[in-house]
């Protein structure tokens, strides 16, 4: 019997995913144990001490101190989960970023109701962006005079592509309201907040096209805001990129 299967979690396809799942299971074990124990006790008590069976109540009631032990046990399990799992795992996710040169680096900018993605191109450096360049025709505020931006690549709207076998570092932000980038099989949810650029990393473990959903209410088409996150083999990725950046000159879009 698969002890980890009982909740029916969707399969996780990222390196940290199984750890998330493990913590989910451990907490649920604790919860089920508590719930089952208390429920059994509860049903037994309610039955045993019903009025017809026990017409006279006892003033003092229970004498046992089992409850204190139970409370202590709950507290210690919670602490174990916190210290043993949640804190170090979270730290791994937000403190220990892989080196950018060993990773695929993306900048994802959400807007009502789409996902924009940029790559730094061959040089590995993103062109500068600044609020002072913002305008209708330059919604990302790109500094067109920055040479580093010349080979940057803008992906088609709502689409992003990464090679398998490398961690992905994404910087999330938003143009307008708060959105939230969620890919269930990656066990990733990250708010995209205007004015902040929030990095997060994860590593997919399987080639495929993944559905991105927006997990934060962002307006009337919130339910319609989706994207595709493509994980491909490194060869396919190289081919794709080479093809798309051929046109050269300025931030290209491969639409």
């Amino acid at each position, binding site marked *: 019997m698969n002890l980890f299967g009982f909740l*029916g979690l*969707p399969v996780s396809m990222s390196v940290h995913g199984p750890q*998330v799942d493990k*913590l*989910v299971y451990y907490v*649920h074990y*604790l*919860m089920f144990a*508590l719930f089952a124990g*208390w*429920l059994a006790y*509860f049903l037994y008590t*309610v039955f045993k*001490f019903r*009025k017809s069976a*026990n017409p*006279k*109540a*006892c*003033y003092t*009631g*229970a004498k046992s101190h089992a*409850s204190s032990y139970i409370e202590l046990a*709950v507290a210690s399990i*919670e602490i174990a989960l*916190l210290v043993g*799992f*949640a*804190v170090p795992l979270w*730290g791994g996710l*937000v403190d220990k970023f892989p080196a950018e040169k060993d990773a695929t680096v993306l900048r994802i900018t959400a807007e*009502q109701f789409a996902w924009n993605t940029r790559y730094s191109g061959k040089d590995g450096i993103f062109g500068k962006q600044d*609020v002072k360049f913002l*305008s209708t025709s330059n*919604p990302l505020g790109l500094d067109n005079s920055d040479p580093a931006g010349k080979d940057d690549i803008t992906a088609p709207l709502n689409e992003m592509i990464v090679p398998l076998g490398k961690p992905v570092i994404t910087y999330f932000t938003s143009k*307008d*309201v*708060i959105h*939230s980038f*969620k*890919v*269930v*099989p990656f*066990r990733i*949810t*990250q*708010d995209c*907040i*205007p*004015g*902040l650029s*929030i990095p997060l990393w994860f590593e997919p473990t399987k080639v495929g*096209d*993944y*559905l991105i*959903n*927006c997990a934060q*209410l962002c307006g009337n088409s919130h*339910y319609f805001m*989706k994207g595709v996150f493509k994980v491909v083999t490194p060869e396919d990725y190289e081919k794709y990129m080479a093809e798309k950046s051929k046109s050269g000159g300025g931030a290209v879009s491969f639409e």
Partner: protein
Amino acid sequence: MQHSHDTHSHSHDAHHHEEMGFWSKYVFSTDHKVIGIQYGITSLLFLLFGFGLMGLMRWQMAYPGTPIPVFGPILEKLLGSAAAGGVMSADLYNSFGAMHGTIMVFLGVVPLAFAAFGNYVVPLQIGAPDMTFPRLNMASYWLYFLGGIVMLISFFLPGGAAQGGWTSYSPLATIIPTQGQTWWLVGMVLLINSSLLGAVNFLATIIQLRAPGMTWMRLPFFVWAQFVTAFLLLLAFPPLEAAGVMQLMDKVFGCSFFLPTGLMISGKVADVSGGGSPLLWQHLFWFLAHPEVYVLILPGMGIVSEILCNNIRKPIWGYKSLVYSLFAIGFLSFIVWAHHMYMTGMGTAISTFFQTTTLIISIPSVIILTVFFITLWGGSIRFNTQMLFTLAFLVMFGIGGLTGLPLGFNFVDLFLHDSYYVIAHFHYVVAPGTIFALFAGVHYWYPKATGRYMCDFWGRVHFWCSLVFMNIVFFPMFTQGIAGMSRRMYDGGANYSAAANKGLLGALPDSAIYSNVIISIGAWMLMLVQIPFIINFVWSIWKGRKVESDNPWEATTLEWQTPTPPPHGNFAVAPTVHRGPYEYSVPGAASDFIPQNQADTKAKASKS
């Protein structure tokens, strides 16, 4: 006066103060009992209304894009294009969602649990003639009423009611053009001021007006619960008021308290100065809203403790640990708020802090529940309607509380944040939790307020049906959440479903989508089975079985030692309290309960 009144005494007691006109007696009354009933009726109506909104939303979730039967055309008449063809538009869905949350929390449960029960019961239980500031009390009700009216009117303003969720996150809430979004803030400011007046009044009443002998450790647990709740409201609401005022400034005067520099709205650079912080709103909102969830639950726990002891005929096992746990919850609830914000880009240090406090606060909740469970041991349990609701509360709150634990870990929240798991978690606490406690309270105190019982048979029917349907509604939501379904989905997630996204990994399985139909049918059935309750409630006012005595449940606390219903001024003489609140089945006593104000344990507790 001690506790001997014949049932008819209220008829002359009512005249003992000078004759009052209809308006000052029932409408602009300063009597805490009248105000309590006003609060009660208004908030029950709002609960029904909030539920109604959800009933309509559930149609859209189960059968996206199809016209709502029967109500669709009515909506179209009332709201015009927002419900064109009887189909709920996305804007309408969002405003119903936001208003469901707002109404349930701020206009339904808080006014019912805190203001209605608190007003009616607290002064009676501590042996006080009224609240300390009766006129503020009246003002509090009318501010609440006004706030409710503003919220209701906002449905009919151009653009409709607020659409930014009950959390009203900026920048979304700031840029939504609906006028209702602005009036939502006005309504909130009114409601906040109402709650603040109420909180001041409750605290002052409990501190100042306890009857002689009513020491702190003799207070019924319900009073303690209201005391801590009032503290939460007093100190947590003002920051939300400040935030509300700032968001209002943003909306009305174009400030940017919550708008960062460089916003691009619908492709144009926003004409604002920028420099604000969207996270500031979230901090101020959750600084209130986390304590607020305890405001939703603590009065329920208080009600439960009263009914529990009364129906098992024995004292609480560990009264002191209950009170201390209550204080621990009250205290800690102010420093856990950012567990709603794990996904906003928190570093390790700060999120560890909030995870730790979140887990610590679960301990006193476990203690409270444990105390209730252990109290059951050795009792002589009577199963009347209020007791059934109470027992169900214990289990249902257990489910809701336990499912809060995984959410408390940010690492798990990576997966479950803003999913239906969260919806299921908190509905288990507030709906089969708090709402059941409130139903229990209605059945328990109804005879005191009206002199008549509610029908027990229909109460049981209502209970069992509600229990079944509540679980049919909320349990599948856990699985939906685990399958990855996000909340606030206009189409119930259809757009993210496997059917609509052939070949994409991570799309919602069909079962999650199909659950929507089951849940919706459950919700409508749940609505249907409220009818016995509503009829029972109204019918019993005039036709219910009359109580045989002033103390029909043979209870110990002071509210039962007055005439039924209590006259203006409650007690002719301040009662003197001689003992703790739950002296049931005291060995050697003449009857199985000794009222708090009875001096002699050997005397037979008077039944009237």
